[in-house]
């Protein structure tokens, strides 16, 4: 252990000198220098993250009368309203269900994609660029684009189906097909993200391990299940947490689909927050719903941290 470097200035200049004197002469203590350098980032974090979060907590106490929107009081009624709100509970369970479907789907597609991108072929760069594109596209563009492609009259998917002799599917109109369309779109967008993270994990697995196993007579499947996958656990954990949290907050894609005609069957928590806050201008209740979403995210994160992290060690 290196000894912390002490100031080479004579004791008389550092001991007992004021902060300002030490600052000017360049003899700040290490801890003081650390605080000074971190200060700008802390201010930024407080301003951009902490202040709005506190604002949301305060805003959730703003109770707007449902009949007379200009009558505003302060209190905890929003919370009791939240627990009795059927629409909130529907959005809650729907978001969890959609999250389960899209997270599972993105892993089922993402892992093979990562393995493909890891292969030593000349096309590797092409696969990696193709992987990057869906994730790089802004969510709302993805949503609007796919909503148009799923359009029952003019959409590309129905055009292909009809040309192949199948029946036209009313994608966004019927609730079950709207769910399928939504899940497919989200999987398309996020499996590339999962693949990229898993690719990073795959790249860090030393080749000698699988080579040694193959010398010992293991098949590629055994190599995959017994060596690759266990070593990929940390990367999987990271991808899982990121994917789950963003799946809980999903807004752009269901919103784009609902604007294009999908029924309420796609209303997730994110969409419901927007509806209350922007459309109904009930900022208080919208903040309360977003606190519900925050609580859900917190619970899921804690679950992950307890069950996934210990496996790493």
């Amino acid at each position, binding site marked *: 252990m290196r000894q912390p470097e002490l100031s080479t200035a004579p004791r008389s200049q550092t001991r007992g000198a004021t902060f300002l004197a030490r600052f000017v002469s360049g003899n700040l203590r290490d801890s003081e220098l650390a605080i000074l350098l971190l200060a700008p980032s802390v201010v930024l974090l407080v301003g951009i993250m902490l202040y709005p979060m506190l604002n949301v907590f305060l805003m959730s106490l703003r109770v707007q009368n*449902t*009949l*007379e*929107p*200009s009558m505003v009081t302060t209190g905890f009624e929003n919370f009791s309203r939240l627990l009795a709100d059927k629409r909130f509970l529907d959005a809650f369970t729907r978001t969890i269900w959609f999250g389960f479907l899209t997270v599972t789907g993105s892993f089922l597609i993402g892992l093979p994609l990562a393995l493909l991108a890891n292969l030593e072929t000349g096309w590797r760069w092409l696969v990696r660029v193709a992987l990057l594109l869906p994730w790089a596209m802004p969510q709302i563009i993805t949503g609007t684009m796919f909503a148009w492609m799923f*359009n*029952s*009259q003019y959409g590309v998917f129905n055009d292909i189906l009809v040309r192949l002799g199948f029946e036209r599917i*009313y994608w*966004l*109109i*019927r*609730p079950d097909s709207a769910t399928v369309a939504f899940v497919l779109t989200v999987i398309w967008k996020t499996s590339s993200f999962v693949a990229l993270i898993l690719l990073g994990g795959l790249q860090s697995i030393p080749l000698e391990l699988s080579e040694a196993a193959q010398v010992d007579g293991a098949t590629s499947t055994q190599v995959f299940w017994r060596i690759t996958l266990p070593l990929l656990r940390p990367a999987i954990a990271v991808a899982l947490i990121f994917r789950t949290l963003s799946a809980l907050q999903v807004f752009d894609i269901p919103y784009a689909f*609902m*604007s*294009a*005609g*999908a*029924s*309420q*069957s796609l209303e997730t928590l994110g969409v419901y927050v927007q*509806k209350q806050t*922007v*459309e*109904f*201008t009930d*900022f208080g209740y919208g903040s309360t719903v977003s606190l519900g979403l925050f609580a859900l995210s917190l619970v899921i994160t804690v679950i992950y941290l307890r069950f996934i992290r210990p496996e790493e060690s």
Partner: protein
Amino acid sequence: MKAKNIATLAAFGLAAGALVLSAATAQSKTTITVFFGSTFRPDLMRPIFDRFEKANPDIEVKQELGGATSELQNQYLTTVLSAKDSSLDAFLIDVIRPAQFQSQGWLEPLDKYLGGSAKTQEFLSGYLPGPINADKINSQIWALPASTDTQFLYYRKDLLAKYNLKVPKTWEEVISQAQTVTKGENNPQLQGLNFQGAPIEGAVCTFLQPFWAAGGELLQNGKVNVNTEAGRKALNLWVGAINTSKVSPLSMAETRTDDSRKIMQAGNAVFGLNWSYAWAHFQGNSPDPTKVKGLIGVAKLPNFAGINASSANCQGGWQWGLSSFSKNKEATFKLLKFMSSSDAQAELSIKGGFLPVRKALYNNSAVLKANPHYTQLYPVILRAKPRPVTANYPKVSEIIRTNVNAVVSGAKTTDQALKDMQAGLEGVLK
């Protein structure tokens, strides 16, 4: 070396001078930003703004285009105005919004710009009463009407003539005529009856119009009364058109106003419900090509057989609002007054089919030449009924339009939707 220095200095001085000069002239011009939806014919608005700029050389008008549907524009305006942002000086809002906007404090009252309440009365006397009622709150005027609107039944004159059919007067006739024509034409692309079933603002009218035609009223004796026979008739009209008589495809559940217009403009609909702006598009005054020029007739919306309703028309229309956060209120009001003038109104009507808000224009020969159906439909326009005027309108609208969409898409039965509408509206309408 010395000459080079002088040359450099001179060039620098010239550039600096030009910069200062241009900055000075730029500052002397007031720029006002006007927001309206992308379907409100920016190609027709821009020349009118240019004429205003010519008449007022110190004002520059920038147009900012918004979403294609009323509620998308509303969400954008809500975001900007909730933040008390001054970037928008004037905006065009749907007729249902002034009450909500005024209660939020987003609109500037216009009486003082018009010169006091007496002069305001005089100014407004030339306007149709319907639009004024939407903009008058607590005896002050909060927005200037830009256009009024209502839905008409557009039909293919040529197809009706081909099958010897007379213009339908009842919904039952519409359905049977649509069946006759579509069976005869045997064209899978041809829709019998086209309407808007997507969860847009217009879907509220998709419900209210047949509801009123069936004798229904949203509020009866101060109580919400929508789960009635009239409500059932209204919703079953559309459900039947899709599932029973099959004159409308299921895609109506994702059809919005401009989608409807495009379908009919391409010649793929026999009957279609749409607002006044569609007429100009059908006649060829449109950025899109038209296959139906001269083939479209306009009729008032049908009644139900045996029911004599006073009016079955939804009052639409757009209003110019002056943002209370604008930094150029005087200049912006000048523009709003200009847009309200007879010339601007007439031009938008002749070129865009927008219904004028000035009574006199319904006798104007140029306006009537471009829109021959105005004379016959003027009484209908006068009798158009407003949707509920309440600051809580966003919730009312959401309840009605999402239930209409659910019924049209088949996600809910008519009875369930009426139950949900009744329960929902009871909580927000009084």
